C-alpha cells in the first residue's frame, strides 16, 4: 500500500473552496474597513495578504484564472499612492464578487464567468499608479557580461592566496525552473559561506538583477575537488563550474574547468509505506450522517421510555424484589449517558450565528448605497449557537428583513434630521438564547410601521373588509403585514423586491417550527424577532387529551396551567374567555363544548405579546418527545407540526402553536365561535358538535 499524492485531492479541493469562502469574507470585511478609512496602509496590507493567500491556494488547486487574477490584483495592491481610496475599496468589493463567481464556477465545473469588470478596475488602478512618479526603477538592464573584477576584489584575491588559501572562480548557472534567481543566488552564497570566503560576486550581492548566471570569487582552504559538488543545490542550480585562479602561496596554475551536471532526477522507488500522519483536528462530515446519528439517539430515547414503562410495571408487580433497585440504578445511569449523548450530537450540529451575521455588513453597505442612505450595522450575540440547518433556513428570510430595514425602514438623511434623529440610521442584528429557543432580532431606528397605512393597504388588497378592520386591535392590524398578498408588485424593486414578502418569511419560520414577531414603535423604528427552536429533533413537551386523543405542545410555551369549570367561561364578542386573576384570557377550544359542571384544564400559553388559553380535557404529563416529521400528504392541516411515539407505542400529535394562534387571530369575529371551538375535531365531529347546544347558541 502506498500513499499517493492524489489520494485526497478531491477532498482537498473541497477544503480549498471552504477556506476560500472564508478568505472572501475577510476580503469583504477589509473592504468595508478600507471604505471607512480610505488609504489605511495596514488595511491595504491585510487585503494584499488575503489576496496573496487566495492566489497561492488557487494555484495549488489548479484554479488558474482565479490565481492569475488574484496575482494581478495583488500586484496593484503592492504599489503605492492610491489617490482615490474609495475606488480601491470598490475594487476590493468587485474582486470579492468576481472571485466568488469564479469559485462557484470551479466548484460546479461550469463555464467561468467574465472577469472583465475586475480586470478593468485593476488596470485603471495600475494606470493611476503609473501616472505617479515611480518610487524606484523596477529592473536594471540585463547584464551577462563576463565577470570583471574590481581593483579591490583583485587585492582581496592576492591577500587570500598569501594567507594560504586557494582562490576559485565559480560560474553557477541557475535551474531554468527556479523562478526566483535572486533568492537562488543568495542560497548559493549561503552554501558557500561555511567553506570559505566569498570575495566578490557578479551580479553583485544585493542586486535585483534577474540573471540566471552567477560568478563568484571564492577563497577556501578546502580540497579542490569537493567544492563544486557541494555548491550544487537541487532545484536551484543546474550547473556549477569551478576554476582555480590562484593557488595558495604557490605560483598560479590553471586547473581544468570542471563541470558538474545536475543529475537527471531518477524516479525514486516508493515501496515503503508512509508513516500515517495525524494531521487535521477538524473533520468535514456530511450533515446527513449527523442527522442519522441524531435519529438513532431519538430512537434510543424512545427505547428508554419503553424500558421505563416496563420497569414501572415490574415495580408494581414485584415491589419487594431486590433486582428492582439494580434496574433503577442501571436505568438512571443509562438515561444520564443518553442525555449526554443527545447533547453532544446536538452540539455537533451547532454553529455560531456569526457565520450568518458576517455577510450582512457588506449587504447593508450595498443596499444603503443603492438607496442613497446612511446606515450603520451593529451586531451582537454573534457567538450564539444555532442548528446548522436552521441557520441555513433563516438565511433568506433574515436577508430579506435586513434589506427591508435598509430600504424601507430607515429614512433618508434629510428626513431623519427633520425628525431630530442622527443622519445615519442604525440597524442592529442580535441573537440570543431564550429558554429552549434562539431569538434573532433585526431592529432599525427608522420611522416604524404606520398602522393606518397597513389598514389602508389591507383594505385596498381586500385582505379584510372595512367592518373587520374597524374592529381590529393595533396588534392584529400589524400582523396583517405577514399575510400573503399584502405586499404589492409596485414596490418590488431591485433591492428589496425579489418577490419575497413578509408572508414568505413567516412561512419559512413556521416550517422551522419557529415564529416571527413584529414590534413596532411608530417614529422610532421596528424590530422583527425571529424565534427558532434550539433544535428540530427533540423537545420537552406537555401531553394532554382532547376528545380522548393524545396531543402535545412544547413545554416551554406553557406559562401556567389553570383549572376551571365550564361554567367559569364567559363569552365576549363571540370569543370564549376566562377571567384568570385580574386578566381576561381569550380561549381556544380544541374540542367540543362540555357540560356546565365539567372540569376542564386551561393551558396558558405565551405567543409573543399574546397570552392565550387552550381548553383541554385532561393532562397526561410531560415527556421528552422525539419529533418525527410528517410529510405534507399525511397531514392535511398545518396545525400539527409533527408526531411522536411514546414508550408504550402510542402515537402523539404535536400541535404547532404559531399556526394555531394565527388561525385563531385570522378567524373573522362572526365565525370565531365556530372556528375556535373544536379546532382539532374532524369535519364530521364538528358537525355533530354543532348539534349539541353550545353555550351562547353558536353553531
Amino acid at each position, binding site marked *: 500500500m502506498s500513499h499517493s*499524492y492524489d489520494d485526497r485531492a478531491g477532498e482537498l479541493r473541497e477544503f480549498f473552496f471552504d477556506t476560500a469562502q472564508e478568505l472572501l469574507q475577510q476580503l469583504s470585511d477589509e473592504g468595508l474597513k478600507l471604505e471607512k478609512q480610505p488609504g489605511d496602509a495596514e488595511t491595504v496590507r491585510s487585503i494584499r495578504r488575503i489576496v496573496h493567500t487566495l492566489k497561492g491556494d488557487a494555484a495549488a488547486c489548479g484554479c488558474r484564472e482565479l490565481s492569475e487574477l488574484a*496575482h494581478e490584483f495583488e500586484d496593484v495592491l503592492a504599489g503605492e499612492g492610491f489617490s482615490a481610496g474609495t475606488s480601491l475599496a470598490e475594487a476590493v468589493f468587485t474582486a470579492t464578487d468576481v472571485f466568488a463567481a469564479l469559485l462557484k464556477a470551479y466548484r460546479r465545473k461550469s463555464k467561468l464567468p467574465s472577469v472583465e469588470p475586475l480586470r478593468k478596475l485593476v488596470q485603471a488602478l495600475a494606470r493611476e499608479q503609473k501616472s505617479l512618479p515611480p518610487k524606484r526603477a523596477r529592473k536594471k538592464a540585463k547584464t551577462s557580461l563576463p565577470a570583471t573584477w574590481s581593483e579591490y576584489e583583485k587585492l582581496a584575491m592576492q591577500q587570500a592566496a598569501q594567507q594560504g588559501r586557494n582562490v576559485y572562480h565559480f560560474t553557477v548557472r541557475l535551474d531554468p525552473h527556479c523562478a526566483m534567481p535572486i533568492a537562488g543566488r543568495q542560497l548559493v552564497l549561503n552554501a558557500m559561506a561555511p567553506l570559505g570566503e566569498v570575495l566578490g560576486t557578479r551580479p553583485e550581492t544585493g542586486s535585483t538583477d534577474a540573471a540566471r548566471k552567477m560568478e563568484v570569487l571564492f577563497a577556501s582552504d578546502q580540497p579542490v575537488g569537493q567544492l563544486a559538488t557541494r555548491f550544487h543545490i537541487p*532545484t536551484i542550480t543546474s550547473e556549477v563550474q569551478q576554476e582555480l585562479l590562484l593557488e595558495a602561496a604557490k605560483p598560479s596554475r590553471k586547473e581544468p574547468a570542471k563541470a558538474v551536471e545536475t543529475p537527471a532526477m531518477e524516479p525514486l*522507488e516508493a515501496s*515503503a*509505506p*508512509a508513516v500515517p*500522519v495525524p494531521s487535521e483536528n477538524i473533520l468535514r462530515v456530511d450533515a446527513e450522517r449527523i442527522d442519522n446519528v441524531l435519529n438513532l439517539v431519538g430512537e434510543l430515547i424512545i427505547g428508554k421510555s419503553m424500558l421505563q414503562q416496563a420497569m414501572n410495571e415490574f415495580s408494581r408487580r414485584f415491589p419487594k424484589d431486590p433486582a428492582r433497585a439494580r434496574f433503577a440504578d442501571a436505568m438512571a445511569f443509562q438515561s444520564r449517558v443518553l442525555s449526554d449523548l443527545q447533547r453532544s450530537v446536538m452540539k455537533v450540529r451547532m454553529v455560531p450565528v456569526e457565520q450568518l451575521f458576517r455577510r450582512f455588513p457588506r449587504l447593508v453597505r450595498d443596499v444603503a448605497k443603492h438607496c442613497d442612505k446612511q446606515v450603520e450595522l451593529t451586531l451582537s450575540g454573534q457567538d450564539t449557537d444555532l442548528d446548522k440547518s436552521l441557520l441555513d433556513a433563516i438565511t433568506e428570510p433574515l436577508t430579506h428583513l435586513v434589506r427591508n430595514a435598509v430600504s424601507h425602514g430607515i429614512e433618508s438623511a434629510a428626513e431623519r434630521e427633520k425628525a431630530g434623529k442622527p443622519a445615519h440610521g442604525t440597524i442592529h442584528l442580535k441573537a440570543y438564547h431564550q429558554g429552549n429557543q434562539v431569538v434573532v432580532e433585526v431592529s432599525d431606528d427608522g420611522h416604524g410601521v404606520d398602522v393606518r397605512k397597513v389598514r389602508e393597504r389591507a383594505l385596498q388588497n381586500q385582505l379584510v373588509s372595512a367592518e373587520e378592520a374597524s374592529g381590529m386591535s393595533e396588534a392584529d392590524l400589524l400582523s396583517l403585514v405577514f399575510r400573503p398578498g399584502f405586499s404589492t408588485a409596485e414596490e418590488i424593486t431591485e433591492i428589496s423586491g425579489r418577490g419575497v414578502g413578509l408572508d414568505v418569511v413567516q412561512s419559512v419560520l413556521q416550517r422551522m417550527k419557529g415564529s416571527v414577531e413584529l414590534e413596532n414603535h411608530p417614529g422610532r423604528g421596528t424590530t422583527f424577532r425571529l424565534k427558532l427552536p434550539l433544535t428540530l429533533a427533540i423537545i420537552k413537551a406537555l401531553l394532554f387529551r382532547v376528545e380522548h386523543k393524545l396531543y402535545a405542545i412544547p413545554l416551554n410555551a406553557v406559562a401556567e396551567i389553570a383549572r376551571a369549570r365550564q361554567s367559569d367561561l364567559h363569552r365576549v364578542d363571540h370569543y370564549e374567555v376566562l377571567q384568570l386573576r385580574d386578566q381576561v384570557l381569550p380561549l381556544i377550544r380544541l374540542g367540543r363544548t362540555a357540560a356546565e359542571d365539567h372540569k376542564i384544564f386551561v393551558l396558558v400559553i405565551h405567543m409573543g405579546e399574546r397570552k392565550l388559553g387552550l381548553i383541554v380535557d385532561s393532562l397526561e404529563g410531560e415527556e421528552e418527545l422525539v419529533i418525527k416529521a410528517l410529510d405534507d400528504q399525511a397531514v392535511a392541516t398545518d396545525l400539527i407540526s409533527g408526531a411522536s411515539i411514546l414508550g408504550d407505542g402510542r402515537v402523539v400529535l404535536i400541535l404547532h402553536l404559531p399556526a394555531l394562534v394565527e388561525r385563531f387571530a385570522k378567524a373573522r369575529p362572526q365565525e370565531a365561535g365556530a372556528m375556535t371551538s373544536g379546532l382539532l375535531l374532524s369535519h364530521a365531529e364538528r358537525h355533530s358538535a354543532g348539534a349539541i347546544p353550545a353555550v351562547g347558541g353558536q353553531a
Partner: protein
Amino acid sequence: MEQFAPVKRSKDGQPVRYLVVDDSVFARKNLARMIETFGGQLAGEAGDGMTAITEYERTRPDIVLMDITMPQMEGIEAAEKIVQQHPEARIVMVSSVGYQENIVAALQRGARHFVQKPVKPEVLYEVIKYVLGEEGSVANAAGAGV
C-alpha cells in the same frame, strides 16, 4: 500520482518531523499532505510567526516550512528569531515569486532554503533531502526504519 521513497532521520531511522507555518489552513494542509507522501511526520502547525516560535520550542522539529506573509509576525522575523535561539534549525521558506526580496532577507538571516508557491511535491522533496544533508537518509526497502 507521485510517489516518494520515505526520507528518515539518519540517527534513529525515525520519520522526519516537520513544523508547518502558514496563515492559510489550506496551504498547511496541502504541505502536510506532501510531507505524508515523503514518509514524514507533522510535528506541529502554526498560523503566524509568534505561534511558530512557540511551536518550534515545543516540538523541536527537524524541518520548518515557513510562509513569508503572515499576520502578527512575518515569516522572516520568525525565522530569524528561531535561528538566533537554535542555529541548527532547518528552515525552508515557502513563498511566491513576488516575495523574492523577502526570501533573500530570510536566507541572509539563517533560513536554509526556499521553495516557490505553488509548491511542487517533487521540488519540495529534493529541497528536503538537500536541507537534511547527512541527517536524512532515503529508505529504499519497504518499512525501513519503522
